[in-house]
């Protein structure tokens, strides 16, 4: 069969089985969606296709010929071009420099043919309807434009299969629209497109067929005409989503977290926020809207330029994590691997860290520490062989629960969570949501930042939408849906006069 075929691909990372035998076929010339929740295995499959990761078993065939990929160069040589979610490009180089990076056109003696590369860049950009000078440095371009430069880079070398990994995550609606038109144009010219996303509206607009992955397995491949978005969601999640509970904030609860006029250049502007004890507030916004920076500033990681933060009516010292944690503020950061876990330390040491930072004891008490951390594993049902292993032996969901348990051990008054279910499986996701609700019931003020809209809708009483560091508006759980939230998130910024 002409086209791209994955045959029984398997891959494990330590104890985590990322792909458990995935077989799926992409027909030549079609636009095919690859859908799945975070942690379903989409990224791993793409990395295997790009030659970055080699599979434990299975093979990839292109036009019935086995592809052996030993590196990113091989994928390109076979006409497979990748556009990554986070731009892996060179901000210090020009547009032309990026497009030809690593594959520069050279003349006799290895001299760079600058003029020719610029000309070819101009032609490529014209094909993509992009009015950009080839000499512009990438760092001066918008996120949307750099994304399109990646597409141009993939096309520069006769790519037959174009793979895009969640390309619209950081794009505005208008920019996304431009990208879709470019992709439709490419499809009409016979380019096979593999489009990875969990945004169903765009998938239904763009793709003829869609394959769903769940927990490292291929659930099914569907024709667009034969399914509804609800069918796809059910396939992604593996069950019917529970009807949203009647989520009304507890009446008459006292305000626990009060933020007034908080600013920190460049990403937080004059934010006011009140969260009552027992309330869960969801913060939604596109990448770069200042959501993480807001949480980090409340937690004291950055000193605010102006504004005040009160917890239980006590004002927090500016830019002091210590003051914040003493007041009961806890932050579960966005990237657990980079920002939360210590892979050189065993779980026991990882777990007691928050409590130790609060405590006045300067001595480590191993026996007490062991008992305390073992209890944490039990309480939060973290699957780990013992407290004496390092976090890399745990699955993503359990790693995330270690980070949660670390902060829950200080019994937070204000519980801030940044993308708490990124890259965890469906089961752990549910448990994490339950933990957040329990904390709220226990009287904590909870703030959940997530770009996963169903998650925000499921867990929050109230949704605050941010854009460019400002609060654009607020919706009650009843008012909020994909449409109203996205509208606020992408609407022009209302600047304070």
């Amino acid at each position, binding site marked *: 069969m002409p086209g791209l075929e994955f045959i029984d691909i398997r891959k494990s990372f330590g104890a985590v089985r990322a792909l458990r035998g995935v077989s799926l076929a992409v027909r030549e010339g079609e636009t095919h969606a690859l859908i799945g929740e975070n942690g379903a295995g989409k990224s791993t499959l793409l990395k295997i296709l790009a030659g970055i990761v080699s599979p434990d078993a299975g093979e990839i065939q292109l036009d019935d010929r086995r592809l052996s990929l030993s590196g990113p160069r091989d994928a390109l040589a076979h006409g497979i071009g990748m556009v990554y979610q986070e731009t892996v490009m060179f901000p210090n180089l020009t547009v032309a420099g990026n497009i030809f990076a690593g594959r520069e056109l050279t003349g006799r003696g290895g001299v760079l043919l600058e003029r020719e590369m610029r000309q070819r860049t101009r032609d490529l950009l014209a094909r993509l309807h992009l009015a950009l000078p080839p000499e512009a440095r990438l760092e001066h371009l918008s996120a949307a434009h750099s994304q399109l430069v990646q597409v141009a880079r993939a096309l520069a070398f006769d790519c037959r299969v174009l793979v895009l990994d969640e390309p619209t995550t950081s794009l505005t609606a208008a920019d996304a629209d431009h990208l879709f038109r470019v992709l439709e144009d490419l499809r009409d010219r016979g380019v096979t497109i593999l489009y990875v996303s969990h945004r169903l509206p765009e998938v239904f607009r763009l793709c003829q067929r869609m394959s769903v992955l769940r927990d490292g397995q291929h659930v099914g491949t569907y024709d667009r005409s034969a399914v509804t978005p609800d069918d796809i969601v059910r396939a992604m999640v593996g069950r019917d989503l529970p009807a949203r509970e009647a989520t009304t904030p507890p009446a008459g609860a006292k305000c626990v977290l009060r933020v007034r006029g908080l600013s920190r250049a460049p990403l937080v502007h004059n934010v006011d926020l009140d969260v009552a004890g027992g309330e869960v507030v969801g913060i939604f916004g596109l990448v770069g809207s200042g959501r993480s920076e807001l949480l980090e500033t409340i937690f004291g990681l950055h000193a605010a330029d102006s504004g005040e933060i009160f917890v239980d009516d006590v004002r927090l010292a500016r830019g002091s994590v*210590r003051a914040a944690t003493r007041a009961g503020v806890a932050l579960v950061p966005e990237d657990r691997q*980079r*920002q*939360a876990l210590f892979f050189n330390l065993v779980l026991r040491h990882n777990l007691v860290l928050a409590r*130790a930072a609060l*405590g006045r004891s*300067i*001595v480590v008490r191993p026996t007490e520490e062991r008992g305390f951390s073992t209890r944490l594993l039990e309480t939060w049902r973290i699957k780990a062989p013992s407290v004496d292993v*390092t976090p890399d032996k745990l699955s993503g969901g359990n790693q995330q629960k270690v980070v949660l348990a670390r902060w829950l051990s200080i019994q937070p008054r204000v519980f801030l969570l940044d993308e708490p279910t990124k890259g965890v499986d469906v089961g752990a996701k549910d448990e994490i949501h339950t933990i957040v609700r329990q904390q709220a019931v226990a009287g904590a003020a909870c703030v959940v930042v997530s770009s996963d809209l169903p998650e925000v809708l499921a867990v929050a009483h109230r949704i605050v939408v941010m854009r460019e560091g400002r609060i654009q508006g607020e919706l009650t759980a009843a008012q909020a849906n994909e449409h109203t939230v996205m509208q606020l998130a992408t609407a022009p910024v209302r600047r304070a006069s």
Partner: protein
Amino acid sequence: MRPLGRVWRIREASTLAILLLEILFFGWYLWPDSGTYHPFLNSSNALLVLKYSSIYGIAAIGAAIVIISGGIDLSPGAVIALASVVTGGLFVEAGWGLTPSILAGLLVGVISGLVISLLVIVVQLPPFIATLGAMGIIRGAGFIITEGRYYDLSRLLPRGWHPLGIPLDWWPPVVMIALAFAFQLITHRLQWGRAVYAVGGNETAAFFSGISLGRIKTSVYLISAILASVSGVVLALVQGQGKADLAMGYELDIIASAVVGGASLSGGRGSVIGAVLGALIFGVLRNALAQIPGATFYDRLIVGVVVIVIVVMDQILVKRGA
């Protein structure tokens, strides 16, 4: 006590095993053909090895702590020399008492450590550059003070001196062993030590956990420089010299000791006891090679090979353990 789980106990035990094997090997290789006097395995040679290894060993304790925190310190050799110059100069030329001269020598460590932490934390220089610069400045200060002279402490120190009832030659190993155990305890039983491992393992996560990076980094560079100055003062007293060109190139041997003892230059791993055992491995090697005719020319080469072999073995061990 189980400081950091399985891998660590294996790691320190394996460094000790290498040291013992090394001693056995040279004991066999240098076994005398006739007579009963063993040129290598005798108590006075053992003391000699311990005495000279201690100069590296004391400083290697600090180097290991810096490396565990994810940094690097190139200045200990220079600090050793300047401390010996200051102690020697004040004692011999300025007519200060011995105790104030020693304290002044240790002050060299305090000041150097503070300057280095200032460069790393406030000026935000990479530790390699900050300590490379500091190395030059500190070494240079020694030359400016001495102007090519050296201070001879030995003629002013009492003959057969037993400070606190311990013979002078015994002092370096006693100081090294005492400091090694003290810092092993500090790094594994105090929250501060835990924080040093955390910063070295994942600086961003340490920041997000509320650990004060500035405080931890200041303390590790301060400790490293103070231990180097201790080493310098001990050297000045035992060798009876204060000289600006003392301990030339020691910084690399000191780092090598820490690395052979299990410290990872990417931070987060290593131990103080391991670093001291590493210093002893090199001390034994040098001493034994000096007794094999012609082998001294191979000294540097063998040291280089040993560093690489031991670190490769360590990597294999860690992979197995993982």
